[in-house]
């Protein structure tokens, strides 16, 4: 059953604006994400990484192309079903923290559970569990604004984790952090993948982080490129280009 829980995107296209200001951010991208794997979406700034991630996470709809989640066409899903899917199966780490400033750390972490309509007691219990796992239990009552950058990012991961999702989408999870703190956050994410089998989709331009993933999807100008890779990290971390992607629009 779990092995069928695949995100399968075929020929995704997305453009912004219209007329002369029209910009094609994605020009036909095909990607599959299998359960339990860790996938890096790599590319230069403006190449369309975040756009792709948003489409895969059902935050946005493609102009063309199809997206299947666990065998169901995303287009056939009702708004409600899409909301439910994002709430229950996905966890999000965005480019910025997006913590609610005047709320406690715990309140921030349990937001997805509150949206899901889970009772106060259960969400408290689950929230504390996650904070303990991230070694933030002692900060549960603190205002989110009082935390350091690394602590904030751990709270964000806690928020992504609290609903026990199948997939965590992380957009530049270490972008705001120094190298050491970034490494801690990376370790947490990969540990979650290892121990709980959570699929990771990580958008990054950090080649080292990309290399730690099972698979890399290289994006340039809205297309998946079958070649190219961080030369200095070496090919050892990379699969063959054929295994990397089905080069839908790359021809």
């Amino acid at each position, binding site marked *: 059953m779990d092995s069928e829980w695949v995100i399968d995107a075929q020929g995704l296209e997305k453009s912004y604006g219209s007329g002369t200001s029209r910009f094609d951010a994605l020009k036909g991208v095909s990607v599959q994400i299998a359960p339990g794997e860790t996938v890096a979406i790599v590319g230069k700034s403006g190449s369309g990484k975040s756009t792709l991630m948003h489409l895969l996470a059902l935050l946005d709809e493609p102009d063309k192309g199809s997206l299947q989640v666990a065998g169901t066409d995303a287009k056939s899903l009702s708004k409600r079903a899409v*909301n439910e899917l*994002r709430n229950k199966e996905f966890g999000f780490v*965005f480019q910025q923290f*997006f913590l609610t400033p005047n709320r406690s750390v715990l309140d921030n972490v349990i937001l997805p559970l509150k*949206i899901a309509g889970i*009772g106060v007691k259960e969400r408290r219990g689950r929230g504390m569990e996650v904070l303990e796992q991230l070694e933030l239990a002692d900060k549960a009552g603190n205002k989110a604004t009082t935390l350091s950058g690394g602590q904030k990012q751990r709270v964000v991961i806690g928020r992504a984790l609290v609903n026990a999702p199948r997939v965590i989408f992380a957009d530049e999870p270490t972008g705001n952090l120094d190298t050491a703190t970034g490494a801690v956050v990376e370790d947490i994410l990969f540990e979650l993948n290892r121990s709980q089998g959570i699929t990771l989709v990580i958008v990054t331009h950090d080649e080292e982080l990309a290399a730690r993933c099972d698979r890399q999807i290289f994006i340039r100008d809205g297309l998946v490129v079958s070649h190219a890779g961080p030369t200095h990290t070496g090919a050892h971390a990379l699969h063959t280009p054929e295994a990397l992607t089905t080069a839908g629009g790359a021809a």
Partner: protein
Amino acid sequence: MRAKDLVTTAISNTFRSKLRTTLTVLAIFVGAFTLTLTNAVGAGVSQYVDAQVGALGSPDVFIITQASDATTAGDGPVTYDPKSSASVSSQQGPPGTTTKALTDSDLTKIGETAGIVSVDPVRAVQPDYIEYGTGSQYEFSINATSAVTTADLTAGAQLDGGASDAQLVLPDTFVTPLGFASADDAVGASVSIGITDILGAKHTVQATIVGVSLESLLAAGAGANDALIAELADAQSGGIATAVTSYGVAVAHFDTTLSADAVTALKADLATQNYTARTIADQLGAVQTVINGIVGVLNAFAVIALIAAAFGIINTLLMSVQERTREIGLMKAMGMSSGKVYTLFSLEAVVIGFLGSAIGAGVAIGLGSALSAVLSQGLLSGLPGLNILLFEPASVAFVILLVMAIAFLSGTLPAQRAAKQNPIESLRYE
């Protein structure tokens, strides 16, 4: 999100920007405060007028006089007829007019009119004083129509019209001067009423106090039952039977089962016979209309204040939506439906409305009750029984609900804006 979570989240969001919320709440406060007070004035005055109507008479009663247009200027002098031309200078007619008196034959005619159950003449008696035991004597008057009225009692019972003993309802201002410890103390006591007959001889009549009433604005004097009035009238006439008995006014009871239309028809019927019949409601209708008009204007001012406050709510919430763009985007990304986002912001508007109106109504009740108490001791002490500000729970609740409804409507635009937000755009927002 559960309904309870939506409400608690809305409440805590409301307090996030304390200064802004306070200012908005203050604007609503002013409107709600005013509306609560104006409603209370309306209710207080209405209740007082109702009590006065009760003091004037029962709803199934006509006050009947001869139509004063019987001697219209320009018709020339009317030939004297000893049978019908009894004229009394009645206090009942408008100033400057002379009301023709009603005679026994008039009463018979009125009594025979279909729909009239009974008709009784109002016999005006002018007692000189009232005295209890051997205490001081006080000037004293009797309300001629008191037999058919319902007094605004503070102690004791209403007059018993059918009783054969002389009964009196004493205005409460007489209680202490006459030497009674309290209103209850006065009930059951026997007092003497002094009266001078037409020949100048003095008489006293004994009466039992059955009740103590608040003095009425529209029907001054003590209440006396038929037996006491008859006794006083006999004493006053000095045993001389006048050739033609005449009365300024008669009181007629009509069939209580009559519809409003039938009552109007009955009035018309009496009018064709040259009698003017007025119910108590007719007499007070004009007063009530004026009061309702004034209260209506005051309410309109309060509603204008509330409309101004509604723009404050819209403004506050639009700012709030703007500030919380990312938070809204995040919640939507995490699967919160547009409907729930809409509900959340609408609820914030309702919470602001509730705060403003509940505080406004509360302060209005507190201040108003104090003010009312001070006024009834001072400025308005001449109108006993008048509670100038009467806070009815239903109308206070109505004000609060009305303000909450206005707040909800004001929240529509900002809430719609929040609900329409695209999560991606919101998260991109710098």
